[in-house]
């Protein structure tokens, strides 16, 4: 299996996969979002804002999953030193940031009508802000280190240590805001949203986001491999 992670092999098998992945994600996203936006009823309590869920939940999911993927890629790099996995981690970070931003933005916009404020220090929101900072730090570290292997090493360690602290933060934030009478109206109302009418288009949207994420990571990894190759060629030239 590892041989597919050799840069040349990787470039080979991803080239034909890429258009399919983008196409499929476009189809899923179109179905999910159009269905959700045009053909679902309005929630009796949240009004039309419930339609935001088709963007909010998939992006929130992918924001977390992107980090998990980076964590695995980092571990693979540290253990097996596969260049592609290090570069894939690097490639995933900006996509993760985009997902986090979408989740934060849609959440904030949703918050205004629901809670009367764009931002509250709700545990989930807070964890996302922290996740956002983790992404920024991770990307900044990649950008700051010149030697590509050292950068891969350092960012991998940061990703691992950061994951541990991200877990701790999640727990801490829950604890911090727990006894602090955040009004009941502010809590995320789960029961309402899992009704079938909302659920099916949501599945499509989630599927679209997942496939889009992978397509983007493949594309960006290819770019990173090419960049690395340019660097190697230039160094050979002197």
């Amino acid at each position, binding site marked *: 299996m590892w041989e597919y992670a050799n840069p040349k092999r990787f470039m080979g098998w991803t080239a034909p996969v890429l258009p399919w992945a983008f196409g499929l994600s476009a189809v899923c996203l179109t179905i999910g979002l159009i269905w959700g936006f045009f053909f679902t009823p309005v929630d009796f309590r949240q009004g039309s804002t419930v339609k935001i869920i088709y963007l909010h939940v998939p992006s929130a999911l992918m924001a977390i999953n992107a980090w998990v993927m980076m964590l695995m890629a980092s571990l693979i790099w540290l253990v097996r030193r596969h260049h592609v996995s290090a570069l894939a981690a690097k490639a995933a970070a900006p996509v993760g940031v985009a997902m986090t931003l979408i989740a934060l933005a849609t959440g904030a916009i949703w918050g205004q009508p629901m809670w009367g404020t764009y931002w509250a220090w709700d545990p989930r929101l807070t964890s996302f802000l922290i996740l956002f900072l983790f992404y920024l730090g991770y990307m900044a570290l990649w950008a700051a280190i010149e030697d590509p292997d050292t950068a891969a090493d350092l960012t991998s*360690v940061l990703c691992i240590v950061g994951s541990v*602290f991200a877990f701790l933060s999640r727990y801490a934030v829950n*604890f911090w805001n727990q006894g602090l009478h955040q009004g009941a109206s502010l809590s995320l109302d789960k029961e309402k949203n899992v009704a079938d009418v909302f659920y099916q288009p949501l599945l499509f949207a989630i599927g679209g986001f997942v496939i889009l994420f992978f397509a983007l990571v493949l594309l960006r990894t290819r770019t990173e491999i090419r960049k690395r190759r340019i660097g190697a060629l230039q160094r050979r030239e002197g």
Partner: protein
Amino acid sequence: MIPLLRRDLMLATRAGGGFGLALVFFLIVIVLVPFGVGPETDILSRIAPGILWVAALLAALLSLDRIFALDHEDGTLTLIATAPVPLETVAVAKSLVHWITTGLPLTIAAPFLGVLLQLDPAGFAAVAGSLLLGTPALSVIGTFGAALTVGVRRGGLLLSLLVLPLYVPTLIFGAEVARRGVAELELTTPLLMLAGITAGAVALLPFATAAVLRMNLR
């Protein structure tokens, strides 16, 4: 370890060393806050434990980049790396010196400065205790961040950005202990969590720090 400790403490206490820096910065924040938010006693005393913790954290954060940067610039770090001292020891020594020059004085000063913020005297012990328990974690985590950015020219910005999210759990539990202490509430859970974070960080992070230093000095 001992020579490293002794030298770093000596450097810290000399003119321009880091010893007073953290304390002065702590003082500055505490003094400025009432000018900013206004002099109302009730507000001040309500935010006092939190502000003390935030100020302590900022003071720790700001003194991080001198942990390795000065030794790196003048070539000492490479020489220490080739000396018969394991880098893990270096990491521990650096963290310890950072704590002695920031965490410890801040802990001692906190109750006194708390007075400026109208901190309820009932909370002195809780604030000082939470700082005593939490600041070692700040030093150890910070040393790790400093090691990550040691090769980066003027990495202060990057360092702050990297360390900030890592500081969040310590801050939350530390400030929670302090606030509950002031309000005389039950504080076992956050206290245990704070102690756990510190113990875990002190036990494990020096290895990560040494590994990262090794990668950076390669």
